């Protein structure tokens, strides 16, 4: 009943799997009611949120004239994009303000969007569609200055370079927590998140040893990708010395510890990310981020509780 309390339903679509989270929004607080590892149909009155993979999204920085109405700005962006990329299909466009007076414009083809939806058998249009890595970043505290956020997600990971609240660059990296999880599961028979939640010292020790053995490989990938991201930032000429810090966003505490304690090049700049919302063992950070974004449609979100 959508009179005083609203529902937010998020669908986390990854690798053919759909995770549904249903939460009640009341007075700025989101209260999670249910979590299903499958698709659950939502009410037409609910706010539905899905995540979008980066392979169908394109991103560009544009100089747009300042307009009062959002619609006009999007129209101007659309014209620019069509001109630059020579596109004639229907596009979905969204702008966010960025540094130096420019706008960061995300766009994707409508046909790609609908194809993505139908590949998961979703036949309704959701209220909000939010890109993958940025969903995790929504619930991470942003520090002033130039920071590099390394987001290790379960299915996709990425690096986002930000200047305060403005995004300077986004780069996907070929690493996911599920790969590490797979290795741990092969060796111990349990998933890394199960091991962390169980509190079983022996298992945790085992998992730590396994993760330590692959830490350097992980760090190698991360280090390389961070350098590439910094160098490919077009908006600002950045170098590693100009970066104020590198923030690691990761759900698994074992992997976080392993990375933070290992010795590598920019260890001095590396730190753990601070989350603005309390994480829950059953939900991934991406799902929390999507819930937060869904709640923002209804008003301020002060907390998310189970």
């Amino acid at each position, binding site marked *: 009943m*959508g*009179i005083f309390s609203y529902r937010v339903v998020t669908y986390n679509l990854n690798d053919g799997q759909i995770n549904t989270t249903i939460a009640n929004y009341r007075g700025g607080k989101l209260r999670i009611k249910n979590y299903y590892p499958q698709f659950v149909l939502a009410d037409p009155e609910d706010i539905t949120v899905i995540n979008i993979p980066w392979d169908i999204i394109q991103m560009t920085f544009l100089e747009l004239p300042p307009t009062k109405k959002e619609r006009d700005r999007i129209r101007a962006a659309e014209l620019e994009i069509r001109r630059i990329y020579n596109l004639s299909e229907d596009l979905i466009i*969204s702008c966010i303000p960025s540094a130096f007076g420019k706008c960061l414009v995300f766009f994707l083809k409508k046909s790609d969007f609908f194809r993505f939806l139908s590949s998961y058998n979703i036949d309704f249009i959701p*209220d909000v*569609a939010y890109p993958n890595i940025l969903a995790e*970043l929504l619930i991470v505290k942003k520090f002033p200055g130039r920071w590099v956020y390394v987001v290790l997600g379960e299915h996709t990971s990425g690096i986002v370079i930000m200047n305060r609240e403005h995004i300077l660059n986004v780069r996907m990296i070929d690493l996911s927590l599920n790969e590490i999880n797979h290795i741990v599961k092969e060796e111990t028979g349990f998933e890394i998140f199960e091991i962390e939640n169980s509190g079983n010292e022996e298992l945790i020790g085992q998992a730590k040893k396994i993760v330590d053995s692959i830490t350097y490989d992980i760090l190698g990938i991360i280090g390389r990708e961070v350098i590439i991201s910094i160098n490919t930032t077009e908006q600002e000429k950045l170098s590693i010395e100009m970066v104020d810090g590198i923030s690691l966003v990761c759900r698994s505490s074992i992997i976080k510890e392993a990375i933070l304690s290992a010795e590598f090049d920019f260890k001095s700049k590396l730190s753990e990310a601070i989350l603005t919302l309390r994480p829950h063992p059953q939900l991934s950070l991406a799902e929390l981020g999507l819930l937060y974004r869904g709640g923002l449609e209804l008003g301020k979100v002060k907390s998310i509780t189970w």
Partner: protein
Amino acid sequence: MEKLNLSPGKKRVLKFSTFLVILVISLSPAISFLSASYFIKERKVSKLLISYPEVFNNISSPNLKNLDIQVESLLSSLKNRETQLRMANNEIKKYIIEAYKSTYFLRYFFSYVSNSENSYFLTNTIYDGERFYLDFYEYGVETRISTSTIYKDLARFYSDVLVSLLEERNFLGNIKYFHYVWEGKK
């Protein structure tokens, strides 16, 4: 970053049931106010009806518009009935008094003479509705008829009362007879 939305968006809809609930909630103050005022009005009216049964049992039509006129007519009709009853009452009283007066002289005579030890012989009684005439003989040593007393008593109800001793004669030994006539006008 929070404003980013890569969905073409869908229209926010309201379920029909939600709409009905909102409608009921928004109408409920008005409905409750109306029903409360109706009940208060009914209570006041019934209190009024109970406290004045004489008026409301006799008012014919439930049309409350001409209530004051109806009450006026009811009042005047009741006044008329009152005068009628009063008149009837007076008539009956008069009739009773008349009837009483018609027989009073005779009853008085009988009660008077029964208290006396003399013998009496009533020869004539005439009453035509207006005047009465009593003619009797009293036999005794001396008369027990006190003219003044009888005059006084009969004058209470009758006018032109005449108590006259017509004749006094010796009868037997020391017994005399006295011939009295009592007359009067109603």
